[in-house]
């Protein structure tokens, strides 16, 4: 069965000119060094990687803005850069840092213009617009010129603009960057809704918690190559980092004697006096019951919890190779 998005051996080089002393030296940057990947229709892919990894380049190629040196891309049977005008009809794109709306005009007018450009039928548009306005809470600023909006408002408007024509695929390049918590939440909720409708979503972001909430599969790009592609679960299993038990001492135990300090060190724990916390790391798979029993017997424990390795740690691990 043909996958919905098929990327094969994608390679992209840039030529830049660096100044070395008094001369300009020509330098080749290998932004993408052979990317292959396929995605099913309706999936939600989180695309992450350190700066310079090639994320934006990939998105630009997938949306038809850039042409690669080598490799093929087929999205629903179309090649983004060869069939540009036909292809972009079915996609929506949101750039976190670049606006696509008419700056001097009210949001409402940008939406009207887009309706004409994408040739959305009047009735379809009316329903879709109502839905978007409600989901993203655009009513309070819908008639204001885009240049007067706050970042959060503008991002919501951009999101709405990108889905007015019901695209099959939505590409997002760091949509939540710089947003306050409330706006971010609205954006994430909206993306979940859009995904539920069946839209395939391709999200590039630096915000890892976002990925955890939204994405089914994750792709980690590093130095132009795919470092990992799979589900969040398999990512956690791939790098078996340790879990941590964090125990807070009760007020009854006023201080730790030297004897206890030695014991703490013996079991490989650390103690944080200001927070009255002990932290013990242990590998995945090991039952923490033993550690808990030991601690309870030796110390006055008020509370404890177990921290899973954050996705940040895992990803950092991968970035560093």
């Amino acid at each position, binding site marked *: 069965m043909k996958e919905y998005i098929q990327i094969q051996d994608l390679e992209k080089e840039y030529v830049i000119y660096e100044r070395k002393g008094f001369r300009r030296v020509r330098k080749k940057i290998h932004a993408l060094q052979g990317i292959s990947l396929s995605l099913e229709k309706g999936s939600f892919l989180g695309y992450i990687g350190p700066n310079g990894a090639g994320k934006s380049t990939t998105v630009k190629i997938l949306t038809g803005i*850039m042409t690669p040196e080598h490799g093929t891309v087929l999205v629903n049977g179309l090649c983004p850069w060869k069939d540009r005008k036909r292809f*972009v009809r079915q996609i929506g794109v949101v750039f976190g840092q670049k606006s696509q709306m008419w700056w001097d005009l009210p949001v409402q007018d940008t939406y009207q213009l887009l309706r004409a*450009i994408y040739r959305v039928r009047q009735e379809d548009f009316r329903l879709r617009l109502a839905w978007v306005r409600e989901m993203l809470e655009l009513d309070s600023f819908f008639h204001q010129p885009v240049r007067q909006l706050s970042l959060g408002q503008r991002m919501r408007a951009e999101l709405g603009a990108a889905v007015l024509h019901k695209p099959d695929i939505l590409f997002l390049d760091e949509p939540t960057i710089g947003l306050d918590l409330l706006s971010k939440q609205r954006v994430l909720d909206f993306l979940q809704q859009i995904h539920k409708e069946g839209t395939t979503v391709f999200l590039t972001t630096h915000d890892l918690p976002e990925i955890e909430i939204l994405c089914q599969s994750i792709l980690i790009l590093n130095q132009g190559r795919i470092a990992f592609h799979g589900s969040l679960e398999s990512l956690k299993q791939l790098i078996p980092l340790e879990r941590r038990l964090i125990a807070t001492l009760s007020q009854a135990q006023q201080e730790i004697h030297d004897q206890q300090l030695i014991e703490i060190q013996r079991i490989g724990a650390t103690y944080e006096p200001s927070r009255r916390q002990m932290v013990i790391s242990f590998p995945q798979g090991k039952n923490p019951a033993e550690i808990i029993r030991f601690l309870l017997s030796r110390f006055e424990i008020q509370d404890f919890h177990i921290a899973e390795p954050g996705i940040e740690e895992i990803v950092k691990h991968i970035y560093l190779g």
Partner: protein
Amino acid sequence: MQIILSLIGISWKMQREYRANFWMEMVFNGLMMASDFFLLYFVMRAFPIIGGWSIGEIALLFSIMEVGYGAYRIFGEGVHRFEELLLTGRFDGLMVRPMGLIPQLLLQKVDWKRMGNIFEGFAVGAFGLSQIPDWDISFLGLYVVLIIASIIINFLINLILAAVAFWTIKNSDLTVLAFYATRTAASYPASIYPSVIRYLLTFVIPLATVGYYPMAFHFGKTDSLIALFAPWFAICGLIPVCLGIWKLGIRRYASTGT
């Protein structure tokens, strides 16, 4: 197309909201351009004939260039500020829309205050007509046709200059160098310039072809029919150059992505 009408309607509504500002801008724009002509007028009071042309004839030349430029600038904001589109990366936003890129440039904004240029251009033209002894409907017809040609040529030349930004990123200096001076120069009869300049205005940045040559033919300063049809030769020559450079520019952008 419906999109154009939409944009015009929307933009006009916007302008009406800032009514005072709008009228002021328009008047100011018009006066700015007219000041050029006022200067010429007083010069010509001392020198009634310049390069074989009378004040009325020059006024008509001026008018053709002025109206053509003003009309181009109404929809030409995207072309005029193309370098900004590239620098801010907003050009990518245009590339992901299912519409031709050049048409999208024309849709970026409707700059109504350019009507000031147009009114002023027509005013100068009317003055010119008043100074010409005999003119008829056919002359008016020629005048209208030449204005249309002027709009097209202004657009084509500026599109070429804009496309240069694909290679150099910033093209504003080039535009100033290549266009503003030549535009002013083409508002006066090319016969007053040395042959190098005349050559430039005829074959390189062919602004003289929409005013000077056809007008020269009409006023009997030359018998060559080529002069009458000069604007269309220029346009036919410019279109492939323009499209060629633009396409090359797009290809370069797709390959290097600024």
